[in-house]
């Protein structure tokens, strides 16, 4: 198991390096000069040149790449022009918020999807199944921001159960404030999750091992839980893992709509303010989050499915 994980970790290294490289290249493709936009158009060319030198922008691209890597190794993500502060510090505040949002979304998505999928799997051609499928298709077609603002309108204002956005202080209040945004993000992947879980459940329900379990006289409820749900859950975990990108994309959009100070709103602010270093750092961190979640997913997967440890 340990060796398996070490191998898995090793495989992630080139991807991490690739992610770093792409985030570096992206920002060097961007038009405009960060030094000039930091100092303004009226700035003295000498001052601009000095800043370019200070930031190492006058070096060759490979040299800049090396110093970028070096900087990252020291945990330094650069300095934000807009916030006038170290991005590492900002990231330390923003990243946990986005992670919390993503985790909460994943949990909510599972809580919503499992009953829907079970219901739909146990009677695949029933009326409820049809309604669930229609609901899925409609949700899948609805842009996340639209779903978000509808939820705010109904659950935040009409029936003011949840705060209509914002990120108050205090753990409880924060968790509560994250529910609605997390629900919005969760809904965006519910259709996929229901579809996948439902397929896995139907497959599991029709499988020989369930038939065998029944023939042994195992009652239906442990079959549902120990057999069907557990086996379908394994594919659920891998769907959820693959969908982390979708969750992160959702966070980007929804943090804006709900005024949540996470990495997504940081990226958006960076984009609107041409804050190159922030855009670069956020792109990088989002990529790393996905890579790490993939690793964690594999780990969880291996825990749930002993066969995975073999490969």
């Amino acid at each position, binding site marked *: 198991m340990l060796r398996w994980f070490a191998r898995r970790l090793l495989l992630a290294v080139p991807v991490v390096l690739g992610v770093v490289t792409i985030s570096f290249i992206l920002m060097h493709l961007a038009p405009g000069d960060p030094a000039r936009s930091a100092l303004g158009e009226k700035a003295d060319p000498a001052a601009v040149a000095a800043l370019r030198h200070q930031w190492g922008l006058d070096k060759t691209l490979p040299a800049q790449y090396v110093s970028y890597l070096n900087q990252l190794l020291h945990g330094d993500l650069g300095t934000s022009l807009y916030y006038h502060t170290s991005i590492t510090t900002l990231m330390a505040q923003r990243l946990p918020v986005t992670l919390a949002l993503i985790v909460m979304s994943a949990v909510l998505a599972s809580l919503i999807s499992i009953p829907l999928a079970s219901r739909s799997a146990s009677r695949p051609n029933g009326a409820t199944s049809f309604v669930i499928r229609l609901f899925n298709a409609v949700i899948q077609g609805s842009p996340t921001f639209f779903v978000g603002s509808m939820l705010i309108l109904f659950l935040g204002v009409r029936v003011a159960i949840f705060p209509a956005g914002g990120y108050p202080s205090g753990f409880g209040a924060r968790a509560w404030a994250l529910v609605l945004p997390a629900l919005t993000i969760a809904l965006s992947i519910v259709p996929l999750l229901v579809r996948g879980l439902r397929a896995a459940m139907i497959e599991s329900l029709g499988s020989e*091992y369930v*038939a*065998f379990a*029944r*023939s*042994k*006289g195992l009652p239906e409820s442990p079959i549902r839980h120990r057999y069907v749900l557990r086996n379908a859950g394994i594919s659920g975990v891998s769907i959820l893992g693959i969908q982390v990108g979708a969750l992160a994309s959702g966070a980007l959009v929804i943090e804006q709509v709900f005024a949540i100070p996470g990495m997504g709103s940081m990226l958006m602010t960076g984009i609107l303010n041409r804050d190159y270093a922030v855009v670069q750092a956020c792109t990088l961190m989002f990529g790393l989050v996905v890579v790490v979640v993939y690793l964690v997913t594999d780990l969880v997967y291996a825990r749930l499915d*002993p*066969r995975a440890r073999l490969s």
Partner: protein
Amino acid sequence: MTENMKRPLLAVEDLTLALGLGGEEFNALEHLSFALREGEARGLVGESGSGKSLTLRAILGLLPPNAVVKSGTMTFDGEEFDLARQSNRSERRRIERLRGSGISMIFQEPSVALNPVIPVGEQIVDAVLRRDHMTKKHAREYAIHLMELVGIHDATAKVDAYPFELSGGLKQRVMIAAAVAGKPRLILCDEPTTALDVTVQKQILSVFTHLRDELGAGLLYVTHDLAVVAQLCDSVTVLYSGNVMESSSDLRAVFDHPRHPYTEALLRSTPDVDQIGRRLYSIPGSAPSLDERMVGCPFAPRCEYRQDDCGQQRIPDLSKTPERTVHCLHQVEKRTLDAVLEEETS
């Protein structure tokens, strides 16, 4: 075991079952009847597609969603079940209560019939554990005991293994152990050795023989292999295309004097180590698929003794003896099988 008057443990009467395929229904089993006494081992023989597996699943209420029982009753230990009313919840519950302790089943493919993500020991006893409120420790000991019973030597080491860590033969033994865990009075076996190597097959068969003697459980043993039947069973029912061709509570009688042309053909096509040099018979043509079935004797198109009246109506039991059933208008009565085989050898 040969007392004819003994009340049957299991009796299936007039089972007709249809499968839905692409919006249409086709009969997969027609008017199937057979019975089995306490402790009896009955072979259910037929080519693939003859409906053997469906019969077993119908008995335990494990039919796939597209199968519909049109008619049929089952009597188990004096209690009657209406197999056609399985959509009724309480009727379904009654059969469900039989599972495990009354009747259990061993599946064909050990590699897919065991849950891949649960240790085998747990799968052997999970049903019993739940029913008998065993302690975890006791359950584990019981699992090891059962594993030893089916001939797994290092059971203590294997009890926590996952199915994928075991060989096919071991997995099959695990399944047998799970099937006997509830001390059932009848074990349904769905070609339990087909997926295994020949040498392993032999071992598994000896496990069955051993278990029969040890537990006194009845066996309903589905196979296409007459040699296995000969080795293990007391009685036999021959199926073809969803219909009973011939059935007898005395295995020897059928093997020595097959009265149905199909049984005869089957026997002629079975290799026999005693008769090396005999050219194996092969039945011309192939079994009809579900949508090709027709009126009359289903075997008629391939039958050597076919006559015009074979295809006109459903053939009733024409055996005239209670311990035997033969659905044929033109039974093979004149010759013994040995005579036929001798003829072929020469």
